[in-house]
């Protein structure tokens, strides 16, 4: 990771919010008391990323202008949070957790499966611009490890097979069901309920 200064050929010349997002942005800014508009910097950057998939320099400059901030203050925030993409990403941004709990549950194989299925390495985007594969730090879903984060959804309890199926479904343009891929409910015990078994009928 380094500053984007040397190669900025991918940076667009300008950025503008869509009419709908501009309304949202102004509503967000209005939430904060007068003189404290800078608090809206993260929601606005998020709005940018939802619109474009990533946060360009031009967009950061626009956010700075909207909030009456020095551009560097926006750069600081946008670069601090790794969730803001500072480079264009594919339509699906596969963020695989490789921290300890996920690793113990086989995240290494998940990463290899993704690489094999997509034909790209970590931090790379497929030639058709559909998939970007990234390695990320703990996503806070260790109880359902291993986990891949795509868009607003977590895909949990992954195995090599379910990862391949997930990618295949995305390639077909389907919307796979988020959450546990092993069939369990949320983070309930994988082997079925272990307490309150007498109430299994659910009529309590």
């Amino acid at each position, binding site marked *: *990771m380094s500053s984007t*200064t*040397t190669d900025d050929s991918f940076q667009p010349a300008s950025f503008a919010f869509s009419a709908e997002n501009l309304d949202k942005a102004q509503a967000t800014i209005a939430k904060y008391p007068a003189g404290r508009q800078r608090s809206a910097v993260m929601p606005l950057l998020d709005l940018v990323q939802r619109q474009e998939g990533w946060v360009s320099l031009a967009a950061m400059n626009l956010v700075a202008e909207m909030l009456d901030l020095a*551009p*560097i203050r926006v750069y*600081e925030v946008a*670069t*601090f949070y790794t969730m803001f993409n500072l480079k264009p990403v594919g339509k699906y941004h596969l963020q695989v957790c490789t921290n300890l709990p996920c690793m113990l549950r086989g995240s290494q194989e998940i990463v290899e499966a993704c690489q094999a299925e997509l034909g790209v390495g970590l931090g790379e985007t497929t030639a058709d611009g559909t998939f970007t594969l990234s390695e990320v730090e703990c996503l806070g879903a260790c109880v359902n490890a291993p986990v891949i984060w795509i868009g607003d959804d977590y895909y949990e309890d992954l195995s090599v097979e379910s990862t391949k199926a997930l990618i295949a479904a995305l390639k077909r343009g389907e919307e796979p069901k988020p959450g546990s891929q092993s069939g369990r409910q949320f983070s309930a015990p994988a082997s079925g309920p272990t307490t309150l078994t007498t109430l299994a009928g659910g009529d309590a």
Partner: protein
Amino acid sequence: MPKLTIDGREIEVEAGTTIMQAADQLGIEIPRFCYHERLAIAGNCRMCLVEVEKSPKPVASCAMPVGEGMVVKTDTPTVLKARKGVMEFLLINHPLDCPICDQGGECDLQDEAMAYGGDRGRYKEEKRAVKEKSYGPLVKPIMTRCIHCTRCVRFITDVAGVPELGGTFRGEHLEIGTYVEKALSSELSGNIIDLCPVGALTNKPYAFTARSWELKKTESVDVFDAVGANIRVDTRGNQVMRVIPRVNDEVNEEWLGDKSRFAVDGLLRQRLDRPYVRKDGKLVAASWGEALAVVADKLKSLDGGKIAALAGDMADAEAMVAAKDLFTKLGSANLDCRQDGARIGTGPRASYLFNTGIAGIEEADALLLIGTNPRKEAPVLNARIRKRYTKGKFPIASVGPRTNLTYKYEHLGAEAAVLTAIADGSHPFAATLKAAQKPMLVIGQGALSRLDGDILLGLARKIAETCGLVKDGWNGFNVLHTAAARVGGLDLGFLPGSGGRDVEAILSGAEKGEIGLVYLLGADEIDTKRLGQAFVVYQGSHGDAGAHRADVILPGAAYTEKDATFVNTEGRVQHTRLAVFPPGEAKEDWKILRALAEQAGVALGYDDLAGVRARLVEVNPVFAAEGPAVAAWGAFGAEGQPSSDPLESPIDNYYMTDPISRASQTMAECTATFVGCAHKRTGTNG
């Protein structure tokens, strides 16, 4: 007031003092990197850890306010171990490149590592490196050396008010920088070099030229603007290597403008190092005796009314008094030190001083700027205005150029009509001034050097009087000068005497042939084409506009080459000191005039520096004063209808305003970077 014990010594300090400040008062040294007296507290380097009784772990003393009965220990094994731990972490990514680092010898990290560093590293992994950056022609960043103290970020954001630096990315990847490639556009950017505790930010033009221990340090005063910042001139051999600021809370705190710091390479270029006499249209090298004889003969052959002298913006008081005495004794009243034609200096001393004082800005509670852009005319003084502004409740309004001053202000317009309205109370800002306890106004040379300058000065006086700017114990009327020599010249009365000509009349007289000889004492900011057929003598340090037109050149000394007196815009008398000798045959300026007087058969009545200085005091007792004296109020300025032309700042290229900065390569680079190559090279006559 809380009482606490540090290392067994009791001290009572003001509430809100930090442990580190209390320890500093006791003279107990606590190592620090991020803390700086004049910057906001960050508390991120952790080097200043101390032990506080009843605290479970070591405490960062820079960020911890003292409490009643606190018992602090700064020299226990725990403290030593904690600091050694911090140092080891700081050194993990810091390169061991001290031998090729310009900070070597004056590096805080190097010094503290002597006390807290290990004798070997335990870190075997790869060190991080930061990609090379560029901050423009003045500051050289080598951010691999950065320890992330954020002093530069806090300075640029808070003090300079040009928020262009920040910390991007995080953790291991944190980088201090501009993120997008960008030259730092602050006129105070050089100060981050002094602030940087390591070699991450160093002086670019000075890079790899000298080591701090080889330098001879001479305390002096800056002359690139009228603030008179206190400086230290570092020399090696007979060459000025660099200039850095000295602490003077009354004047520059510890900041210095970029021109004052970086234009010193101009001291080596375009220098006049021997006398020249024009023969058959060409300047030919001559001896001192020959050159002086030519000038003396010419002076003697002309009637007193046909000779004139103009003093430049960097002329020292000693030279000006000698020139004045010489010309007065030759029967000439044609003297002027106002090259820009400023209509000022005839009234009481208060009419041309920055009466509030630079430190006094911090007490003010309303400010009106008239025809001035202090950011370009006096960046250090502008930082003081910003300092006051950041404390809040400080309405600022400007009548003049609309520009970024690094703080918010109300732009009332650029026309003098606004001033008339404020003076008669019909403008809303008049009420703001009247409501303030300590209101002040600053009138710049952009207003005073206009043809209606005396009317504008009169308007400013009227505003000062009607809006309560002048009262017991407070004088809010301020003139911001741009020339270091100006106040000294006005104090000495280097002005047209009775029947004498001012700068405009001298030039028009020369054009018409009524003036036979013009003596330019470092005066380059005039239109030399207007000197007509007059015999021109140029005495000065640089081959600039004046020397090109001259018939005789008498090589003088620059401000680093003489013991000379300058009076700053506040009326503060300060002295430069000889740090290096003038080049070649050049001499201290008053001595040249003394020798010329002798040749011309005039006795000046002083033969040494003490004698000249006594003469200064004789002419005006303020030259004996330590610090600025309070100047008495009185009538000045003129009545009348000001012109409707917009008010402008006299400086549009901060980096080139005088012969030294015009000769400087660094300043030329700055001009190209910040102003644009095609920019006209003008001075205050622009």
